[in-house]
């Protein structure tokens, strides 16, 4: 791989890492989970939340299940 290719890969990996740590990939993970669970099911698959619904649901769940932050 040439230098430009390496730099591009580095930038991509960094973006992937930051998105992961910040939790931005939560919806993609949810979708992937949903698809893999219901990929082989015959017939109806349960409805999947849209992106907007998912993020609302996520913060609303935190309302009833708070997580401490450390000192």
């Amino acid at each position, binding site marked *: 791989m040439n230098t430009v290719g390496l730099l591009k890969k580095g930038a991509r990996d960094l973006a992937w890492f930051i998105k992961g*740590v910040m*939790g931005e990939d939560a919806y993609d993970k*949810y979708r992937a989970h*949903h698809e893999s669970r219901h990929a082989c099911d015959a017939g109806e698959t349960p409805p999947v939340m849209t*992106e907007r619904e998912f993020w609302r649901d996520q913060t609303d769940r935190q*309302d009833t299940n708070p997580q401490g*932050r*450390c*000192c």
Partner: protein
Amino acid sequence: MGATPRTPNDSMGEAGVLDRDPALLPVALDQTTHDAEEAHWTPAKVAIWGGISLLGGLSWVMLAVVRGETVNAIWFVFAAVCTYLIGYRFYSNYIQKHLLKPDDRRATPAEYKADGKDYAATDRRVLFGHHFAAIAGAGPLVGPVLAAQMGYLPGTIWIIVGVVLAGAVQDYLVLFFSMRRGGRSLGQMARDELGKVGGTAALVATMAIMVIIVAILALVVVNALAASPWGVFSVSMTIPIALFMGCYLRFFRPGKVSEISIIGFVLLLAAIIGGGMISSTEWGAAFFHVDPVPLAIGIIVYGFVAAILPVWLLLAPRDYLSTFMKIGTIGMLAIAIIVVRPEISAPAFSEFTANGGPVVSGSLFPFLFVTIACGALSGFHALIASGTTPKLIEKERQTRFIGYGGMLMESFVAIMALVAALSIDRGIYFAMNSSPALTGGTVEGAVAFVNSLGLTGVNLTPDMLTQTAKDVGEATIVSRTGGAPTLSVGLAHIMQQVAGGSGMMAFWYHFAIMFEALFILTAVDAGTRVARFMLQDSLGNVFPKFKNTSWRAGAWLTTGIMVLAWGAVLMMGVTDPLGGINTLFPLFGIANQLLAAIALAVCMAIVAKRGMFKYLWIVAMPLAFAAVVTISASFLKIFSTIPAVGYFAQNRAFSEALAAGETSFGTAKTVAAMEAVVRNTMVQGVLSILFVVLAIIVMVTAIQATWRSWKSRDFGTSEDPAVGSQMFAPSGFLPTAAEKELGASWDAQARLEKSARSARSATRNRS
């Protein structure tokens, strides 16, 4: 895939469950493969580890033995990093091999309970960042600054050795045990292992400790912002910024977390720069100049409102901002310390090791070990390690990298904070960290006080204090206790050598203040919420209605109770005639270490129940140390006859003075102030008694449970039943050769399946 269980107690009746069809790809490497890889010492590996050991050894010699005029900060970095690497490679591996025996054939909760939301397998490197962001806060930044009073060596040794043998062990064990129990919390594990009495004591202690920790963190913010218009402006701007971010994510672009964090970060920088402009105007300086008491009231009101607002509006966006700032600033500071390599002129052991000094009262033992809690051993981490992280972990063996490794990172943050505090002039350090009761809060008073301490090599002039204050854009730096301002001066001092020169010092100072305030406000808000749910849960046992957490009135009432509890302690600290931080900070450290003792006690009972007495010392050693430190510190705080150390001795001294009709005593200049001291010391003393009694109950029940396991030889486990895993992932940061090979086979299989799936759907579409 060996079907034989590796521990007799672990896999009772599970062997069948974990057997996997040999035709399928294996989900784990055989233990013998791991052992063989580990035992294979290539010349390159020998050279690398030899080099690490030599460099580590040399650094310790430079720190501990060589006595020059100054010592370079780079030796702290090398000593820490080399010791961490050796501790991680050898000690945590030993714990993994002999005590925990993770089994990657077992599915983790993220796999067998997967719901795509709370339980979701997360890449180990991402989860490491995630876990680190959750455990690292203001604690490791503040404690080491205060402990710098005793010289550089005691704090350095405790931070580095303590984390390897105690702090990281605790985090690793709690994470592993919680993961084996479907992500159960520390409180639930305490109930399971220690029974009703121990479990209840652990729960009450956790709640009380949460209150005290939130209160003292809030006190640190008040001390950093009081009478600082610049700081007040920029930190209060974080609230509208967070509200804006929350609305953006809710209504405009849901899920664009990095995007809004970058926008928020730019706004934050604008708030810092704007703060500088506004504080230089006459009206700005007057309007944003807030005294400690109104500021404390403001934070109490803020805490209440923030804890009842929906998470999406304030907590979640500020959490993103705080994570972003945390990882960025800590990385930046690490690079800056390596680039600047400041010379440190503080002595290895200062004049204050035997009897304490103006910053922290009491002798090195036990008070060093409670002043530096986070960074060496922090009980609070047990709540995180038994919270979100165990529900996200992919494979059992990854607990070592995330639990043990994550804590090593936090310890490194503590070392950097210590270096930053030590890099500033010692005279300035003592002028900033001695309470206003000692310095009178004036430049002249501070100069007179610090020079009267008779410290070798310290000659403070009024000019040094006024110039530093001017450089960092503050009216004064005298008696800015609490650690945050000192750290910020240190950070500004280091950063300006990398970027901006002395003209940028004021910016860096307020950047650092903002950085700390941001974590602390998030911790205050999240801590209040967690404590409220704990209270609701406990009250629910008596009044079932409280169990319904969506009952608005109940939520408001319990939030109000928790806020009043920490608010009262905060007010006590703010108005304390003796200084506040120096009387309350030991309580913070003791509380945190007692929580660590509770967590380790639960771990000890679990290890005993598994029947692994041969390796019980791995838990018993840090537990014994934490117990000795905290119990002796508590006893000194309760029974010491020296007023500066003992709460009740202080109480008696002031009561007697009041009874004798005196109108001023020591640093309390009025009768009202004397009465405040009597009241505060009584509350502090009673809290000390409460903590130590609860912790002793937990430890005694844990010892009983351990003894029962030993006597009855009736071993078992409260783990969830084993479920076979269906996936593979490497365990450490970098995959080993064998892991790489197996991972490649899994990748190839995934590609095959994918193309088969698309072929199938293509046929379906055609028909």
